[in-house]
């Protein structure tokens, strides 16, 4: 058999003359890595809000299901499709909101196949509800790691995304979140940083939210 294209390419690259590379100057991690926990959370919230993200803080004295219902009411959300990832489950959601009459909640586990699920997130749901694995203070980003309990389209196809973020999961820099996720035994097939709603400014530089993904993104800090 003749030499494969792959091998031809690699051989040519290997035979090319080497060049010296300038030494890499040390670059400090973003200053948010040096912040104390509460300052870090504050920085995260400020950045997230700059991108028109909306933040709610959990009041431990109140039922979490009731609070979620209130958030949904405020934003005209009735139909919710929820993941059942570990972060969400630890918060008590979506179970705690299941009985609330004004909300219609379905979990992704209830769908038989991908087509049925896709139809629901595109055409039925007002919002997707998920956990967020990390919040990153340097840019106000959510880090979402997708798996069997956390579908990708939940935070993408419906018009709004509600993410539950534990306060102790707010880190300073991307590297910290990625190191934690990279160390896991089973690596997620996809990870996404989400920073504010979907946006564009492609017509005349006029910015607007909700181009293809959600126009509204809500973080519920617990």
């Amino acid at each position, binding site marked *: 058999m003749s030499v494969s294209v792959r091998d031809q390419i690699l051989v040519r690259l290997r035979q090319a003359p080497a060049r010296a590379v300038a030494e890499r100057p040390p670059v*400090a991690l973003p200053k948010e890595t040096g912040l104390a926990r509460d300052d870090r959370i504050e920085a995260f919230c400020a950045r997230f809000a700059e991108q028109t993200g909306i933040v709610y803080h959990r009041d431990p004295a109140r039922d979490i299901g009731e609070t979620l219902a209130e958030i949904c009411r405020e934003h005209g959300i009735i139909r919710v499709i929820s993941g059942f990832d570990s972060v969400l489950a630890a918060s008590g959601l979506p179970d705690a909101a299941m009985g609330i009459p004004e909300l219609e909640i379905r979990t992704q586990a209830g769908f038989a196949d991908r087509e049925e699920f896709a139809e629901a997130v595109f055409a039925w749901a007002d919002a997707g509800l998920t956990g967020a694995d990390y919040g990153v203070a340097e840019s106000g980003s959510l880090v979402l790691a997708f798996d069997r309990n956390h579908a990708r389209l939940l935070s993408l196809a419906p018009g709004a995304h509600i993410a539950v973020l534990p306060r102790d999961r707010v880190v300073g820099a991307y590297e910290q979140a990625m190191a934690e996720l990279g160390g896991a035994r089973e690596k997620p097939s996809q990870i996404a940083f989400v*920073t504010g709603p979907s946006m564009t*400014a492609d017509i005349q530089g006029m910015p607007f939210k909700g181009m*293809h993904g959600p126009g509204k993104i809500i973080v519920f800090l617990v």
Partner: protein
Amino acid sequence: MKVTTEQYRRVAAREMADEYTKSFLRLLPARLAERRKTAFTDFSDPAAARAAGAAIRAGALENLPQLLATFEKNAKAAGARVFWARDAAAANRYIVDTARENGISGVTKGKSMITEELGLNEALAENGIRAWETDLGEFITQLLACPPFHIVGPALNIPVARISEIFLEKGLISRPEHDPVQLGLAARRFLREKFRHLEMGITGVNLAVADSGTLINVENEGNIRLSKSRPRIQVAVMSLEKVVADMPDAMHLIRLLCRSCTGQQVSAYVSMDTGPRKDDEIDGPEQLHIVILDNGRTRIYEDPVTRQALRCIRCGACLNACPVYGQIGGYPYGWAYSGPMGQVLSPLLLGFARTRDLFSACTLCGKCRDVCPVGIDHPGLMLYYRNRDAVGDPDFRGTGAPRPEKAVYGAYAIIAGHPLLWRVFGAMARRAINCYARGNTIGKGPGVLKGWFALRDLPAPPSRSFRDQWKRRHPAPHAARPASGRKQP
């Protein structure tokens, strides 16, 4: 897409006469440059951050064969299929075959320069497969069949009236609409139906991470995430230089890329795929195809001078800094890559015969180099291209300088090498040039010099040369000096 790089002069002249383009160019590049500058203040040392970006990309290129092999191994271990394509035809054939084998009649595309380089949309169309560009700007330029005006916003310059017209014609709206937001939402509604039933999505790749086999895409609209998450089949096309060693390197480059591109700290979405979805996931692709494209890049790599062009991360900062781009906009560059980025890449990818005007149309001011987050020396490369072209280097399909030009410089070399000839020539040239002087400046010249003087003035040379004047002022010491000079130790 159609290559029109050889029409650079004609299109540039047309664009410079276009009032609409001019008014637009007065605002856009400056605004983006300002946003970039502000965003870089987040770094405790912006210069060090850029130097680190240069070192990361240069280091990745020096280890390119190892990194590519490692990337392939890890991506395959995660379940991806990897196809190595020598050229555009091979890449397009693989993608068309993949679509056919899976019975696909329509695909969506995330914004990607590489698939424009491939001419993928045309290849798909020839095989009866409809490709929808889904980035709003790309979608508009696709409907209008016009090249990208700017890498960040390919349709930023298109007047709303024209967008309204084409949306009406294609049935996206039912009556004229001049509100950019409403036009954007009309495109959303239209493309959402494509996503909703999507079976195959095609995207480019911003970065590939060797030690985990991960692909990274950076975007604001969500169209790339949708193209990767909804369908059963995902095709990611990457040129072979996209790979970096590890995730920390990738994270630093993302910080640089987003700030350099739109002045954002980070774009709305950064998505990172390691293999296709797992069997128990309800969405995400069942097949992930990664096409690693050469298309002339090994040759670019083999020359240690041009290798640095492969560092480019397509941020577009150089466009906003360039005084030439600021006058003519993106259309004259005639292909997927415009501005200094295109002036550096297109000649290497297309050969000099079709791109000579691109690297000639540079003032060598160096502003592009100063803002480049990965340390590319654009002016240095363009000088190198001019040199390779003048000597007729076959590797670059250089044709050599035109014969009259060669003759002129040949004669000049002889004259400049002989003091007597030089003095005679100097005296004659001085007299000849000064025939065209008006006061102290010369504003026009004869014959072939007309073009040179069209945009420049030359100060008139004085009637006597420096040597003459020196001799007159210092007659005696001048004669004695060489002798005394030799006596010194």
